[in-house]
């Protein structure tokens, strides 16, 4: 195969694949609902590490998985290991899973101890 043919085929493959991969490239958001969602509960577990931070929040006996951002971006919002502890009241604002039976959301903003942490500042609702 000549180099030219190889390049032409690569371009063709990219043209075919790009629309399909656009949905996956969001990595975290393609599975979420568009409308904003608020969750209030008690912190059951916190994980601040790679590949991204998570928080388990107990809401009336049901444990929700609240996904945050990769550790660096999460810490950039001011949220660190000291920001919240198991047992703390927490409010998470963001987008929930499109699957309504799944207790999972991705938070753009976390409010705990009257402190607000904007994990994804560019996605925070403007109201």
């Amino acid at each position, binding site marked *: 195969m000549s180099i030219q043919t190889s390049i032409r085929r690569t371009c063709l493959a990219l043209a075919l694949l790009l629309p399909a991969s656009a949905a996956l490239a969001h990595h975290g958001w*393609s599975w979420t609902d568009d409308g904003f969602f608020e969750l209030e509960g008690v912190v059951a577990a916190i994980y*601040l*590490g*790679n*590949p991204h931070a998570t928080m388990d929040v107990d809401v009336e006996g049901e444990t929700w998985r609240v996904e945050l951002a990769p*550790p660096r971006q999460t810490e950039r919002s001011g949220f660190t290991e000291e920001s919240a502890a198991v047992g703390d009241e927490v409010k998470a604002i963001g987008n929930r899973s499109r699957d309504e039976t799944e207790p999972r959301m991705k938070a753009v903003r976390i409010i705990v101890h009257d402190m607000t942490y904007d994990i994804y500042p560019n996605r925070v609702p403007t109201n």
Partner: protein
Amino acid sequence: MERLRAVNALKGSYYAYPLVNALHILAIGTLVGAVLLMDLRILGVVRSVAREPLLHLLREAVALIFPVAVVTGLALFSIRAQEYATNPAFIAKMALLVLAGVNFWAFQRFAGSESDADAYSTAARLSAALSIVLWVSVLVAGRFIGFI
């Protein structure tokens, strides 16, 4: 204890985690690429290169890179072992890896000691075709771990 410290460092690292991740991709890319080329050559799709030297080279490449894929994979797994162990895509990937291993063992039995001129038996060729399906599935299942 030493290992636990390394796991914690990887968990909170800014650079090490993406680098280990990249190394895992490099290893998997080399591994799956080499396996697919071997399978295609065994199936007779790629005929422009003599079979035995090609298989010899690719087998050596696989032997070299497989441990890298395993070690980097274990490192990535270790930082949230419980999460991954219950992840359906991860479980599927491990099951497919086992199947790929069994298939490789079966291939070696079917193939026996082929000489350059011999064509592979139907069983060996079926095993090579199955190997393509299994390794691509391993790759796809692996990619889905982060999206499930």
